[in-house]
């Protein structure tokens, strides 16, 4: 047991087991609305082949990308300001802690009420979910700066500006990047909820439409595709993060 199989073999077995159970449950069937793994896979391939999946993603990605870009710029800026200034910290930390803990999806209906059913509401849904973790990670990154390095900078006649640029920001960069990754993960949740809740567009439209015409393999294929897409994107960012910020050089603190 101890020396037999390499880790990726265990991962393959794990996947095979899950898909096997899924196939079995679909064929049984436990519900008419539950397609088997093979049916779902075929549906996925046909949606890729006829271009409907690509078309849906083009629509879905638009508010996601805009929302993440906005959250990143504003969130990192705000988090850094909170970390550097006590008054900004006192003013906003309680709000940010509440926002991070609150089930923000609950305010999406409110966004629809104010901003209608267009792109704005969907972008805001992404922003509302993604920005708290981006702000908090940037803030913690700044606050975690090593006091001994700051003292060293002062001892060698560094100005406050040099202290920020040469010590505090490089020190915080790993945690800020981790915040962006977690923010993107939240953004995926935000956009799917928005597309299901506000008006069905993109991938949300594929899910709702196929569900309404009882084409369950297609509906499941759409769901599976967004799960795979989000997981791969987040995983790629995680690898990039490890490459850019090796743990022995930066980022001894864990994200979150």
């Amino acid at each position: 047991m101890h020396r037999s199989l390499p880790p990726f073999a265990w991962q393959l077995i794990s996947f095979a087991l899950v898909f096997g159970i899924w196939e079995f449950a679909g064929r049984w069937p436990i519900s008419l609305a539950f397609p088997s793994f093979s049916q779902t896979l075929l549906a996925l391939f046909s949606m890729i082949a006829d271009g409907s999946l690509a078309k849906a993603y083009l629509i879905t990605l638009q508010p996601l990308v805009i929302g993440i870009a906005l959250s990143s710029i504003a969130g990192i800026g705000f988090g850094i300001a909170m970390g550097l200034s006590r008054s900004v910290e006192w003013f906003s930390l309680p709000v940010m802690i509440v926002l991070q803990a609150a089930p923000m999806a609950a305010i999406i209906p409110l966004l629809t009420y104010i901003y209608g059913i267009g792109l704005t509401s969907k972008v805001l849904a992404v922003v509302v979910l993604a920005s708290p973790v981006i702000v908090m990670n940037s803030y913690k990154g700044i606050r975690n700066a090593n006091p001994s390095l700051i003292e060293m900078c002062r001892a060698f006649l560094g100005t406050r500006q040099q202290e920020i640029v040469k010590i505090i920001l490089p020190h915080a960069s790993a945690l800020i990047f981790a915040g962006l990754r977690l923010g993107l993960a939240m953004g995926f949740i935000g956009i799917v909820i928005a597309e299901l809740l506000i008006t069905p567009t993109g991938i949300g439209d594929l899910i709702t439409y196929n569900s309404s015409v009882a084409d369950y393999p297609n509906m499941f294929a759409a769901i599976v595709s967004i799960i795979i897409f989000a997981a791969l994107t987040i995983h790629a960012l995680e690898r990039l993060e490890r490459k850019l910020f090796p743990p022995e050089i930066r980022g001894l603190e864990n994200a979150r």
Partner: protein
Amino acid sequence: MPANAIIEVKGISKTYEGGVEALAGIDLALPQGMLSTLLGPSGCGKTTLLKIIAGLIPPSQGEVWVKGQKVDGPGPERAFVFQDFALLPWGSVLRNVAFGLELRGVAKDEREQIARKHIHEVGLKSFESSYPHQLSGGMRQRVGLARALTVDADIILMDEPFSSVDEQTRRKFQEELLDLLRHKKKTVIFVTHSIEEAVYLSDRIVLLSPRPGKISQIIESNIDRQDENPEEIRRDKNYLDTVDRIWQILKQYV
């Protein structure tokens, strides 16, 4: 006060927020070109005193004068060597050693040339592009020392620089430090809790007593360092007597 005092400490007291009294009424004159040690048990405020001299901590009362000027912050004539090395983990040895000059706005080529010279001096040649995590504790502190030498300060303030270095490395480092500083004619203030280290390295030992930190005694050791090789010092009668004398004094505070 000696005529050649480069550092004068006048009536320094320090009470931290929360009422902890770290230092009370310290008067001290430290001569130029010598290695003086601040020695005492933990809690005697020796590091606090060193950081006040460095201008990193403001005193609650009193003044420090360095080269005839009142201290109100760090200055170019003082360089600091930290107990925990305080190296940039994302910087190479070269960048770390040149960091003091980088902060002063010296051009890259120039500061790296100066830094290389001091990297060789502390025995780290060929480690210029290594990162701190790839070095041993002793080597990291050599980087810290080279960084202090690079800014060419007259006074080098060392805060327990060998405390996180193993015993063998420490002995070798001490010998090399003596050798290096003798040639440089720097004034060194060295903080330690090791009696042997203090007597081995310094011309003048300031004994501090704890809670609050006060000067208990100043001891001049008359060890002739010019002729003797470093190995001999540890067997010198003067050395052994001084170690014993200091232990007799410090014993009552432990």
